[in-house]
C-alpha cells in the first residue's frame, strides 16, 4: 500500500487530498478546489486602486493531481460537500473512468454548491465578455505575474512558484450535471463493493450534513480514512467512531488541529475595522496528551466531553448579540458564511434573539440555491443529529427556517436584482448570501453598499484572510467580526480516539509529529505533501474460505514428524465482496494417481525391496563413470529398465510404459510426497 498526500488542504473549505494505492487499485480521496485563492481577483464593483487581477477568475485545483494520469484512477471517495468541487475537472476528461462514491447528502449539497459557483461566476463572464485567449489569459503571462505584489504572487504561484499549472477556467453547468451523473450515492453504513475486491462503507463524521469517514476493506487490508470530524454536532449526525473500530490502519487526515494561523496581521489594518476574534483556548492540549486512560468508558467520556460544543453555542450566541447590537444601531448585517450547518443554526438563534428583543427586521437569504438548500435540509432527517431526528418522531419540522419562511420573516431570493426583492427591501436588514471569499455573489454588491457604514457588521470565518479579502473594499468603516467554528478533532482528543479505535498503524500528517506524544500501542508513520509513503503489510496471507463439502474429497496425508496433515486441493477461486471463496470444480476433481511432488532422499535398498514386492527383480550398481552419489538400479525381469538415483532426482528409464508405471508405484511407496 502506498499513500501520497497530494495536498494538505487549506482549512475547512479545502480539505486535504490524497492518493492511495491499495490492493492494486488507485483511490483518490477528495477532490477539492482552493477557493481562497479567488482573492487575487478583483471583484466587479471595485473602484479603489489595488493590485488585484482584473480578469475573469480562474480556479485553483490541487496542484499535484495533474501529475497523475486520470485514466489510471480507479476510485474516488468524497467525504464532504466542499471536497467535490474539483471533481467536474476530472470527470470531463475523456480517459477518466473511475467510480465515484459520496453519501447522498454530500452529493446533493455538493451539487448545489457547484451550481451556485457556476451561476455566480457567470456574472464575471457577462462583465468581461468571452475570453479572447482561453488557453492562457493575459494575467498568466510572466510579465504580468511579475508586476503582482509579493503576497498575491505567492497565492498565484505557490511558495515554490510551481502552482501556476493548477489554475483552471471554471467548468460549465453541463460539466457539473455530467459529473453528478457519475457519482454513486450511498447512505451511512451502506456497503458498496468495488470490483468485488474492496468494500467501502461510510460513517458520519459530524462535520457537515452527510459528511463521512470511510472504511475501506480489501482482501488483505482494512483502512479507515478519517477526515475532519466533530464529535457532537448541533445539526448533522455526530461522529460515529464506534463503527470505525476494528480496522488495522488509520489514515488520519483531520488537519484542523494544526492549522497554522498566519492570516491575520493586526499590525496596521486593525484600525480600519474592529476585529473581534473569538479565540480558541487550545493551548491546554499538552497536559492531556499522552496520559494513559483506564478503560473504554473513560475514553468515551473524554471524547464526548462537551467543551467545544458549549464553546460553539457560546460563540453563536456571541455572534447573535453582535448582530443584534448592529441592527439596533440601525446598521445592516451581512453574513457570507458558506457552511450550511452554521447558517441554519444562526438563522434559528438570531430569530430567537430578535424575537426576545421584539425587533422586526427582515432576514434575507439571497442565493440561487437558497430555496433548494433549505427545502432539502428539511427533508433529510436520516442525516441529522439525534435532537433533530427526535423532532421528526414528534412530528415537528426539522429546522426552524420552515416556520420563518411560512411566517414571512425569512425571504428567499435567487438573485439580488429581482423586482420582488426591491419591493420588500428594507434596511436595516440581515442578509445571508454567498460567497465567503468576498469575490463572488451578492456579498460583493452588498459589501460595496455597506462598507462605509460604521453601524453595519460583516461576519467572516476564521481561515479567510480578512486583510486580503477586504482589500478591494478599502476605506472600510463597517465592523468585521471574524470567528472560528469547530472544524475537526481537537488535538487533545486525537490520542484517546486512536486508543479507542485500536489500530495497528496510524498514518499522521508530519505537522502533528511535534504535537503528539507517541503511544506504543501502534506504529506511527508520518506523511508529507507529495512524498509517497509505503505502508508495510500487516498480514502475510490472504484469507480464503473453502466450501466444506469440498473437504470430503480431500485425501490428506499425515506427516507425523511435523504434526501436520497435507492434502491436495483443487477448485476455482472466486472473489466476491472482498472475500476469496474456493469452490469445487464443476467436473469431479480428479487427481491423477500419479503424485507430483516428492521430497527427501531415496534409499536404493528400500526401493529395490519395494520393487521386489511388485515382482520386479534387479540389482544396484554403482557406475564409476558417473559422478559420485549417483546410484543405479538395473531391472532385468520382466523387462529391462534402469533407475538412476541421486540426491536431487530420480530418472526412470524404461522401454515400456507399464513397467515405468509399476516402478513409479514402488518408488512412491518409499518416498515422501504429495
Amino acid at each position: 500500500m502506498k499513500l501520497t498526500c497530494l495536498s494538505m488542504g487549506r482549512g475547512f473549505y479545502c480539505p486535504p487530498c490524497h492518493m492511495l494505492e491499495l490492493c492494486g487499485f488507485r483511490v483518490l480521496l477528495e477532490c477539492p478546489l482552493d477557493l481562497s485563492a479567488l482573492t487575487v481577483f478583483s471583484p466587479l464593483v471595485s473602484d479603489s486602486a489595488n493590485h488585484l487581477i482584473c480578469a475573469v477568475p480562474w480556479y485553483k485545483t490541487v496542484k499535484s493531481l495533474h501529475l497523475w494520469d486520470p485514466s489510471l484512477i480507479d476510485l474516488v471517495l468524497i467525504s464532504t460537500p466542499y471536497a467535490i468541487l474539483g471533481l467536474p475537472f476530472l470527470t470531463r476528461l475523456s480517459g477518466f473512468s473511475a467510480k465515484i462514491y459520496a453519501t447522498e447528502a454530500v452529493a446533493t449539497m455538493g451539487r448545489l454548491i457547484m451550481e451556485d459557483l457556476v451561476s455566480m461566476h457567470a456574472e464575471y463572464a457577462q462583465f468581461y465578455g468571452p475570453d479572447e485567449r482561453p488557453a492562457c489569459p493575459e494575467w498568466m503571462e510572466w510579465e504580468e505575474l511579475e508586476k503582482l505584489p509579493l503576497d498575491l504572487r505567492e497565492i498565484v504561484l505557490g511558495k515554490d512558484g510551481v502552482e501556476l499549472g493548477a489554475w483552471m477556467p471554471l467548468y460549465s453547468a453541463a460539466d457539473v450535471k455530467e459529473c453528478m451523473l457519475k457519482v454513486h450515492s450511498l447512505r451511512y453504513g451502506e456497503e458498496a463493493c468495488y470490483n468485488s475486491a474492496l468494500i467501502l462503507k461510510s460513517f458520519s463524521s459530524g462535520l457537515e450534513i452527510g459528511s463521512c469517514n470511510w472504511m475501506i476493506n480489501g482482501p488483505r487490508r482494512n483502512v479507515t480514512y478519517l477526515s475532519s470530524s466533530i464529535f457532537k454536532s448541533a445539526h448533522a449526525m455526530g461522529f460515529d467512531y464506534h463503527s470505525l473500530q476494528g480496522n488495522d490502519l488509520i489514515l488520519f487526515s483531520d488537519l484542523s488541529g494544526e492549522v497554522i494561523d498566519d492570516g491575520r496581521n493586526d499590525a496596521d489594518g486593525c484600525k480600519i475595522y474592529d476585529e473581534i476574534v473569538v479565540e480558541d483556548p487550545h493551548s491546554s492540549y499538552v497536559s492531556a496528551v499522552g496520559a494513559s486512560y483506564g478503560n473504554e468508558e473513560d475514553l468515551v467520556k473524554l471524547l464526548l466531553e462537551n467543551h467545544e460544543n458549549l464553546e460553539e453555542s457560546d460563540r453563536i450566541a456571541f455572534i447573535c448579540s453582535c448582530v443584534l447590537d448592529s441592527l439596533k444601531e440601525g446598521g445592516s448585517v451581512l453574513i457570507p458564511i458558506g457552511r450550511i450547518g452554521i447558517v441554519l443554526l444562526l438563522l434559528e438563534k438570531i430569530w430567537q434573539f430578535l424575537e426576545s428583543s421584539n425587533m422586526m427586521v427582515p432576514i434575507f437569504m439571497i442565493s440561487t440555491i437558497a430555496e433548494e438548500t433549505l427545502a432539502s435540509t428539511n427533508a433529510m432527517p436520516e442525516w441529522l443529529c439525534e435532537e433533530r431526528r427526535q423532532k421528526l418522531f414528534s412530528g415537528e419540522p426539522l429546522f426552524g427556517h420552515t416556520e420563518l419562511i411560512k411566517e414571512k420573516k425569512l425571504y428567499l431570493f435567487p438573485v439580488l436584482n429581482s423586482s420582488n426583492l426591491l419591493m420588500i427591501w428594507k434596511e436595516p436588514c440581515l442578509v445571508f448570501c454567498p460567497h465567503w471569499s468576498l469575490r463572488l455573489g451578492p456579498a460583493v454588491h452588498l459589501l460595496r453598499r455597506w462598507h462605509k457604514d460604521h453601524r453595519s457588521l460583516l461576519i467572516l470565518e476564521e481561515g479567510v484572510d480578512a486583510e486580503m479579502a477586504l482589500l478591494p473594499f478599502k476605506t472600510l468603516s463597517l465592523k468585521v467580526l471574524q470567528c472560528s467554528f469547530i472544524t475537526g478533532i481537537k488535538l487533545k482528543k486525537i490520542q484517546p480516539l486512536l486508543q479507542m479505535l485500536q489500530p495497528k498503524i496510524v498514518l499522521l500528517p508530519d505537522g502533528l509529529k511535534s504535537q503528539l506524544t507517541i503511544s506504543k500501542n501502534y506504529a506511527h508513520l508520518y506523511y508529507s505533501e507529495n512524498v509517497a509513503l509505503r505502508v508495510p503489510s500487516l498480514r502475510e496471507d490472504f484469507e480464503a474460505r473453502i466450501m466444506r463439502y469440498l473437504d470430503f474429497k480431500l485425501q490428506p496425508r499425515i506427516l507425523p514428524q511435523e504434526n501436520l496433515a497435507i492434502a491436495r486441493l483443487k477448485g476455482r477461486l472466486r472473489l466476491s465482496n472482498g472475500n476469496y471463496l474456493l469452490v469445487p470444480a464443476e467436473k469431479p476433481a480428479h487427481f491423477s494417481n500419479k503424485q507430483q511432488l516428492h521430497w527427501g532422499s531415496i534409499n536404493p535398498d528400500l526401493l529395490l525391496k519395494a520393487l521386489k514386492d511388485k515382482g520386479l527383480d534387479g540389482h544396484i550398481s554403482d557406475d564409476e563413470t558417473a559422478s559420485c552419489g549417483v546410484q543405479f538400479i538395473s531391472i532385468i525381469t520382466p523387462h529391462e529398465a534402469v533407475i538412476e538415483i541421486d540426491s536431487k532426482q530420480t530418472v526412470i528409464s524404461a522401454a515400456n510404459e507399464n513397467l515405468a508405471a509399476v516402478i513409479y508405484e514402488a518408488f512412491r511407496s518409499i518416498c515422501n510426497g504429495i
Partner: protein
Amino acid sequence: MEGDGIVNPITIMEPAICEKEYGKLVSLCFKVFKDGGSVRFQFHDEYPTKALAPLMLEDYRKVMVERRGEEEQFSYEHIIECMKKVIALDLKQTVNVDKDLQIRAYYAGHVLGAAMIYAKVGHDTMVYTGDYNMTPDRHLGAAQIERLQLDLLITESTYATTIRDSKYARETEFLKVVHKCISRGGKVLIPTFALGRAQELCLLLDDYWERMNLKVPIYFSAGLTIQANMYYKMLISWTSQKIKDTYATRNAFDFKHVCPFERSFINAPGPCVLFATPGMISGGFSLEVFKQWAPSEINLVTLPGYCVAGTIGHKLMSGKPTRIDLDKDTHIDVRCQIHQLSFSPHTDAKGIMDLVGLLSPQHVILVHGEKPKMALLKGRIQTELGIQCYDPANNETVFIPTNRTVKTDATKAFIKSCSIADFHISSNPLVGLTDSNCEAIELFRAVEDKKEAEGILVMDKTKRAKIVCENELMLKLGVEEHGVKFAYCCPVYIDFHEQTSHQLASGSCVALENENSSLEAARSPKCSSLQILHRRLESQICCKNLKGNPDYLKLNSITIHSCSRNFLSLPNQGGKTEADQCNISVVAGHQLIKIWLGS
C-alpha cells in the same frame, strides 16, 4: 437456519415491525410489556416506521378502548416506552447487531418505510420480506433489492395467484366514477387508512383536479391523515423518484386542492370528496359520514380491495345490500353507489416470481396467504425456477441446510497462481500444435484443467489451515524436492546424406569427403544430430514451440537430449552402420510420454 438460537427471535421480530400492520405492531408492543423490563432484543426499524408507528398504535388503542369498550391492553406511555427501544434503521444501512449478526434494510415500496430485511449470520444469509410492491406507484417507488447470494428467502404470498391488470386502467375508471358523481352534485366518501392509499389517491385526485380545473373541495378528515402527511413531506428519500426530483420546488404532498374537514360540512350542500378513516367503515368517522351519505342516490362510496369480514365494507362488497343493520334499533338504507378500488400496494404473483427469480436463493419459504394458492405458487417456484420451496403451516418448523464454509489462509503465491492460471486459459488456449495430432489434444486437456486452482492444504492441529503452493510447502517443511523423471532411450537413425548436407549448409565444414564424414559426425555428434532431429521434427509435425538448444531440444515438458550411455540393450536395426546411430533420451517432466520420430 441452523444454529444460533438467539438470532432467530431477533430476525423474526424485526420484520414484524417493518410492516405497519396493526396486529403485528400490537403484538410487538404487547410482547415488550409482557416481558417487562427484561427485554434483551434490539428492535431495528426504519425511520418512517419509527415515526409513524406511535401514531398507528395510538389510533388502534383509541379504537379498541372507545368502541369495543375493551380493557386497555397497553397505555399511551407503553407506546412511548416501546418506541424508545426501537432503533431507527436507514435504507441499505448495514448494521452489525453483534459479532455474528448483520442486518440491512432494502426498500419494499409497500407503505412509507416498509422494508425487506436482509440478515446474515456467520456466512448464512436470508432475506425476510413482508409486503412489498414490485411496481412503483405515485407516491412510492418499486421494491429495490440487489442480487444477493442467499440461502433463504421468506416472502409473503397474499396474492399468490392474482395477476393484476394495468394500473392506468384502474386509475382512469376510478377518476371517471368520481368525476361523474361530483358533476351530478354528489358527495364522494373514500374510507381509507391513514397511510399509503390515502396519499396515493390524494395525489391522483389532486393531479386530476389540476388538469381538469375542478373546484370541488377535497377534504381530509381531521387528525391522523394530515399528521401522517407531514411525515411524508419530511421523509422524501423514502418516496417515489418523481416526488424526489420535484420536492425542492414543490413538495408533492402539499396538496393544492385539499383542506381539512369539519363536522359541520357533513350535511353542507354541494359536491365534495372526503377521505375518512378507518378504511373498512368498521366504525369511527367514516361510519359516521357513511350513515349520513349512504341514503342518497347521487353519493358515492369507494371501498378498498379487501375488507375484513364483519365490517360494513365487507357487507357492501358482498352483494348489493339496500339496508344494513347496525344493531337492533338502527339501520342504514343504502342507496348510494358503491365503487370498489383495487389499488393494493401488495405485489401480485408476477411480482413474487420476479423477486424470487432475481434473488435466486437456495430456498424459499412462503408465508401469509391462503393455503391452496400458496401450494400453487410453491409448485411454480419449484418447477419454473428450480428452487426448493416450502409453505409451512403455523407452528411448523422447517430446517434449511446451508453451505458451510471453512476459513483458511491462502498465501499470496497461491492467490496469484490462481489468477495466472485463469488468464492463461482464457487468452491462450492453444499451444501451437496442430489439432490433427490426437495426442496433442490430451495435452490441451492437461492445460485446461489448470484453470482450476491447485494448491496444497496444510492442516495443523493448532493453527488455521493454510493453502500453499508446492514450492512453499517445500520451504515450510524445510526439505528439498526430489524430482522424478521418466526417460525413454531410443536410437535415432540419421541418414548419412542428410548429415552431410546439413554440415554443408551450416558452413562449418565446407569440403568434406564422404569417407571422413563419419569421423566428423563422431567429433560433434551431440549438436549436429540434435540439430538434424530438430529440423526433422519441425518438418514433420509442424511444431512451432520446439525450442532448439545446442545441448537439448525442448517441447513444453519434454526434453530431448543425446544419451551417452546405452543401458538398454536395444535391438540393432539392420542396414545401418554404428556411426549413423545416435541415442536420444527423451525425458518428460512428470509424465510418461510416447514419442515417435519418423526415420
